[in-house]
């Protein structure tokens, strides 16, 4: 039986006749969860989120309730809530659909969460390039304010919160929560060192701050609606709820699919939802969730512990779509934006493409990341331009090893992981490519042998 979607967050996305205005949202039960929840104690809502086991949907997968629990309540400083709408992990486009097609769901989730943590003010930090999304959110907040779902004394509860939509200006690093906070303070987005700058203690203006992803805040609405314990029954133990999978790259039908956690596999995603590889091609590699996650090569086998406790073996296509399963295979589902690459893909070029990205996006604060990402870009670009040397293969891996774990924020890992996984897994391709280049340099008359066969990626 083909795998099916279970749409909770995306329930009305792309539904014919569903529009972004308040009236339509309310016709579909909008703001009813807020109406009920705002009569309850904030601590009860936080408990629901803890009970739900909900993990953050921004890539790191940290439990949301635990994050909220870190809030420093003793300082007496105001608490801030920031919605991270700076969606910029390559391969990820799930939050865009919510912002553009169901903005009130995000606003309801934001107000609910703000109430639960008793935030004084909430922000939605949206990508600068989402011009339309910014306007849509501003308009939706105006509507919600006029209807008393946002602003002063919300629905007579005595609780007040405003939402400011704030535009970024094209930096990937603003998706990192402390970089985002610096940016929101009007500075360069240099991530802060933890400790002491855990946002829940020393966040925006050095006040306790919670930063949650767009989808996470929407999930909170449904957690509160169904109750944490009920929500925890969706999906698999350790990863409750649904994941919105965005698939892209070499598939017949790229698109987004909301699937109950662990209830489908990579195979289902590729064939049942994605329509398989383009005609006449086979899939060679998969990046599970945003390009920073470690790549998987078709044919790899993973020794795993099955849900019943017994030992088993999975191939790439067998991996169930939940966080624990990807962790067992040495990678992570990250932001659940999966990229498929077929047999025409030059894996060295694919890595060079990403290295160019990370070099461009390194904020420059930490030397290992600034220099490491730059040299990784230069070396892989040189290999793609025909100037490869056999020692470059180990050099790329060595540089990556020197970056990971030596930086203030996780951009260091994001730089390193693609190299650390691509190089050993596709070493044969690297060697063949460089061998052909060396041969071409020694025999210039046969230079055509090193010409690109697939699409140029860098």
């Amino acid at each position, binding site marked *: 039986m083909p795998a099916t979607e279970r749409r909770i967050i995306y329930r009305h996305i792309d539904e014919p006749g569903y529009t972004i205005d308040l009236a339509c949202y309310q016709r579909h039960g909008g703001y009813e969860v807020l109406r009920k929840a705002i009569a309850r104690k904030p601590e009860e809502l936080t408990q629901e989120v803890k009970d739900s086991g909900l993990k953050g949907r921004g890539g790191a997968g940290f439990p949301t309730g635990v994050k909220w629990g870190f809030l420093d309540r003793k300082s007496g400083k105001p608490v801030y809530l920031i919605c991270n709408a700076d969606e910029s992990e390559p*391969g990820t*486009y799930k939050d865009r659909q919510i912002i553009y097609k169901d903005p009130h769901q995000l606003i309801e989730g934001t107000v609910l969460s703000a109430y639960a943590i008793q935030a004084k003010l909430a922000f939605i930090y949206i990508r600068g*390039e989402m011009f*339309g999304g910014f306007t849509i959110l501003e308009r939706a907040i105006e509507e919600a304010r006029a209807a008393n779902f946002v602003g002063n004394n919300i629905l007579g509860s005595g609780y007040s919160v405003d939402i400011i939509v*704030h*535009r970024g*200006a094209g930096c990937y690093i603003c998706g990192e929560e402390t970089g985002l906070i610096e940016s929101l303070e009007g500075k360069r987005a240099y991530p802060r060192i933890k400790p002491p700058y855990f946002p829940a203690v020393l966040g925006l203006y050095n006040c306790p701050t919670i930063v949650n992803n767009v989808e996470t805040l929407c999930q909170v609405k449904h957690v509160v609606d169904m109750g944490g314990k009920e929500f925890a029954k969706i999906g698999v133990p350790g990863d409750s709820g649904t994941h919105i999978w965005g698939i892209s790259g070499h598939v017949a039908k790229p698109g987004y699919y909301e699937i109950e956690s662990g209830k489908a596999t990579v195979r289902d995603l590729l064939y049942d939802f994605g329509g398989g590889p383009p005609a006449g091609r086979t899939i060679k590699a998969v990046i599970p969730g945003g390009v920073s996650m470690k790549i998987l090569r078709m044919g790899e086998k993973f020794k795993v512990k099955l849900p019943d406790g017994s030992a088993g073996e999975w191939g790439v296509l067998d991996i169930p779509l939940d966080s624990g399963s990807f962790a067992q295979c040495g990678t992570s589902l990250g932001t659940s934006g999966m*990229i498929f690459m077929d047999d025409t*893909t030059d894996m060295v070029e694919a890595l060079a493409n990403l290295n160019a*990205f990370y070099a461009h996006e390194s904020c420059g604060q930490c030397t290992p990341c600034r220099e490491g990402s730059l040299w990784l870009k230069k070396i892989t670009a040189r290999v793609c331009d025909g100037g490869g040397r056999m020692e470059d293969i180990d050099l790329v891996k060595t540089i990556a090893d020197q970056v990971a774990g030596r930086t203030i924020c996780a951009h260091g890992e994001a730089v390193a992981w693609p190299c650390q996984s691509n190089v050993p897994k596709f070493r044969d391709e690297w060697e063949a490519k460089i061998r052909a280049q060396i041969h071409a340099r020694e025999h210039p008359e046969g230079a055509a042998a090193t010409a690109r066969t697939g699409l140029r990626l860098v």
Partner: protein
Amino acid sequence: MNLSEKTLKYIDGLIPRYPQKRSAMLMVLHAIQEEQGFLSKEAIEWTAQKLEVVPMAVYEVVTFYPMFRQAPIGRRHVKVCRTLSCALRGAYKVCDSLQHELGCGLGQTSADGNYTVEFVECVAACGSAPVVIVDDKLHENITPEKAPDFAAKIKKETSPSLPPSRY
């Protein structure tokens, strides 16, 4: 500085919404760039005064964030996504084709001042790759085959009476 009444009013309404003035930085800079097309030295100094920070605090932001620029560009700002999902579906060919059709090199403006073509990093629309942003609008599924027609459409919409792109 010469800012329209509308933009001034917008900026003056914006700043007090933030607990600290400096927080309005990116929003103020966007507002000025979207009126003037770029951020001049005068704009940087004006913003500094407005937000009660030293001009260097504004300058370091202007030079850090890719969307801000210090010189005007062409009448139409064409931004081609080059990151992996778009590249796997032909973004480099699309970019070559747009440069050829619009008559400019990468990161450059055409001689007639009409078009600036740039590569940008992932814009979060990977399921409809390749994508191109023209000014403030996202265009999806711009495959290498469609690129020449797409360029023709941009050309048709562009006239010498347009000011430099504000986006």
